[in-house]
């Protein structure tokens, strides 16, 4: 299997993947990057939901994590604001059509 990393014009990592495209990397490098991506995503969610504070984020990641949370708030509102309507939520809870 071919593993790759994709960077933008500023050499910032945009995505990783398998198959065609990007810059080929080793499986070990891919797994390392994947772990970091998932870990950062988890921190974004926790910070967004208020489960943690920015001080709980590794120093070297704080700027990025805070930026991503700020952008998420700008697009979706705070975690207290429902992303779906109460009607949608009720429909889900009652096992309605997904």
């Amino acid at each position, binding site marked *: 299997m071919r593993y790759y990393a*994709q960077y*933008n014009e500023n050499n*910032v*990592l*945009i*995505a*990783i*993947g*398998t*198959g*065609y*495209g*990007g810059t080929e990397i080793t499986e070990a490098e891919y797994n390392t*990057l*994947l772990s970091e*991506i*998932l870990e*950062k*995503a*988890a921190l*974004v*969610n*926790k910070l967004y*939901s208020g*489960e943690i504070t920015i001080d709980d984020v590794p120093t070297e990641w704080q700027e*990025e994590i805070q*930026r*991503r949370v700020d*952008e*998420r708030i700008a*697009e*979706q509102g705070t975690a207290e604001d429902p*992303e*779906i*309507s109460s*009607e*949608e*939520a009720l*429909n*889900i809870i009652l096992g309605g*059509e*997904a």
Partner: protein
Amino acid sequence: MSYNTDLQSNNTDLQSILDLIQALPEGAKPGQTKIVTPSLSEQTIAPDSGKSLSSVQVSAITKELLANLDSDFIADNIAKDIDLFGLVGTLEASAGGFAYGTITPADTTVAQIEIEHGLGAIPDFIAICAANDKNSVYTRSTPYGQSFIYAKYVSTNNGYRRYAAKHQYTSSLKYDEGNISSTIGSGLAYYLALSDTSIIWPNRNTSYGFGKYPAPFLWIAIKEISA
């Protein structure tokens, strides 16, 4: 002494001299250079009678020589841009087939993700879904699980075909007068675009993009193979 006897004696002497000459080592014979052109069959290079080989010159293998030896040695039979013995190929692979892979966005704030499919033509069909059933990084109570993007062609812009897409996770979808809409919540949002090299996917950290789900996504693109 008769003349015949003398002639016979001379012949005997000459024959003896000839035998001695022929018995001489090779180096003693006059040298000769031969030029050989490679061929499709094995060749044995031997000196002419009475001579020895001082050198054998073998002609270089050139594209002209190969073309003379095999009528199939033409540019159209060599993959494009591949150089064989100085002949650069012009054969292009037929666009089509299928490609698949996974992609995991690194940053949910990147506006779009470009998936290179490498098919050489705009795919006839694509599908993208979350690779994992459980997005354990998310704390939301609503399980998004596997997700599909439904899309409808809208327009062509700058060489890309653009599609209005809906991320199916909670809403019922309906198709009405050429539009995909949701019976609950908002309707069409964000474009995905296809080109002959890549799939452009909106990645914003919203319900309609990759960015909300950094876990790996599976993708497949299919293009009917052209003749």
